[in-house]
């Protein structure tokens, strides 16, 4: 599903964000990417979306060879996966329904399909009754659920969430995490970048810990170790 082979990333200003990273995530997995700010976690996510290009190494996502992909193929890679941001990124002048439908409009989906899929996605995140509201009328948790519905409406095989609970209170965070977990149970591969210790510890999923651009720990049913925060390298 996702594979990184000897991936390094150095930014033009000389910052080394990732150093010879190897990572393989299989279909149906639920993976936490953890690590402090500046660890390279966000860079890794950016590589998966081809927002940034790897300096060396190979990146494969959803069957796409991301490294050798041209600029014109990028939209199709992104359509094949769902993406959830920390700041929701909903279109403010579109309703909840329109926001979700928009992800299908850009893929030139049939109107019939849109009318079928959008209510299903909204039902999944429990927002059917708020379909005609605007994002500004919703709470943060609800907005993130809309974003999740949008990410899922095209039935992606892979869902990437970058700090999805970063702007939410603990209780709402849990709701989102439960939803992600449910999505995973339905067969979607889920990657969550986060530094929320309590959630990672409670969920008991695979944890990939990054520090100073290197994967320092990769553990099934892992915990968020305090060492991860202190940037110590464990091998």
């Amino acid at each position, binding site marked *: 599903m996702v594979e990184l082979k000897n991936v390094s990333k150095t930014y033009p200003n000389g910052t080394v964000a990732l150093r010879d990273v190897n990572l393989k995530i299989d279909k149906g997995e639920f993976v936490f990417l953890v690590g402090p700010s500046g660890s390279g976690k966000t860079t890794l996510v950016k590589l998966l*979306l081809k*927002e940034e290009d790897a300096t060396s190494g190979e990146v494969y996502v959803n069957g796409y060879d991301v490294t050798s992909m041209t600029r*014109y193929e990028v*939209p*199709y*890679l*992104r*359509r*094949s996966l769902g*993406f959830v*941001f920390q700041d929701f*990124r*909903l*279109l403010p002048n579109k309703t909840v329904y329109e926001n979700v439908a*928009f*992800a299908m*409009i*850009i*893929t*030139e989906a049939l*109107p019939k399909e849109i009318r079928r899929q959008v209510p299903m996605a909204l039902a999944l995140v429990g927002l059917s009754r708020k379909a005609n509201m605007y994002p500004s009328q919703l709470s943060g948790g609800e907005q993130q659920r809309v974003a999740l519905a*949008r990410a899922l409406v095209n039935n992606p095989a892979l869902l990437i969430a970058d700090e999805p609970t970063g702007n939410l209170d603990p209780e709402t965070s849990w709701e989102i995490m439960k939803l992600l977990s449910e999505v995973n149970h339905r067969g979607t591969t889920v990657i969550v970048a986060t530094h929320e210790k309590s959630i990672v510890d409670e969920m008991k999923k695979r944890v990939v810990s990054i520090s100073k651009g290197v994967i320092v720990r990769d553990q099934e049913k892992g915990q968020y170790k305090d060492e991860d925060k202190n940037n110590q390298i464990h091998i």
Partner: protein
Amino acid sequence: MKIRTIRYIFKEGFVNTYRNKLMSLASLVIVVASLIVFGVFVLIALILEHNISIWSEQPQLEAFCYEDLDDAQVDQIEEAIKRISEIKEYEKVDKEQALEKMREKLGENAAILDGYGAEIFPVSFIIKLKDVETSRKVVSKLEKISGIQKVSYSQDTIEVLSRISHWVKLGSSLMVIIFLTVSVFIIANTIKLTVFARRKEINIMKYIGATDWFIRWPFIVEGVIISLIGAVLAFIISAYGYKAIADKFSQDQFLANAQILSLVDIKDVWGVLALSYVIIAVVVGTIGSSMSIRRHLKV
């Protein structure tokens, strides 16, 4: 591209134009102003062209031979005239015809010609040119032919007119280029503000997998809408404005009688004007919006 996508693109374009009313209005004014300036130059050029062609239709040059030449010598002169490539056509006026002409000219007083024979009149050639601008050159060529006594031509009018037309064409093309460039940049700027206001939206669209063209088209539609409305307004203003001036002109007895300048009928030129407005509007709108959005698509 599918029809529903095209419908989406047009809807977005219209909605955005309306949403950015103020900026759209500002660009609209500039577009209308530039197009009117353009229209004025086009009309002036058309009028000059029209008048030059009227002048060209009239006999432009008349070369008179010496009165005492015999037929063979006249034939030689005719041969020489035939060889001048700038001449479109010529008409030979022989002595008899010249006498007849003079009689007509004198009318009642023709009696004073009684007792004179046709032999006192010179043979002449009435010459039409292919291009008025060559008149000076042709005159000097004619004057070099031996046996030609004198060449008369409406030198001033033709030359002044052709010189004015030359400069007006040059100047107006220059002005038109300047004004259109300004319009492109102003439309680009308007769209740039729209793009800037909506950069977050564009960013989101890029993340959920919209192609560049899917994002770009509504902005292009927006630019074209603004400039098309501008073209329609500019056309109405310049067509009515011109009609008003033309009416004034034809009512003015002095100007109408002087026949210095004849105006083109608006009916004959509105097609050219409308077509060039629309083409320019589409080109300017498209270039303007494509220019402004390029930078924001790199996500």
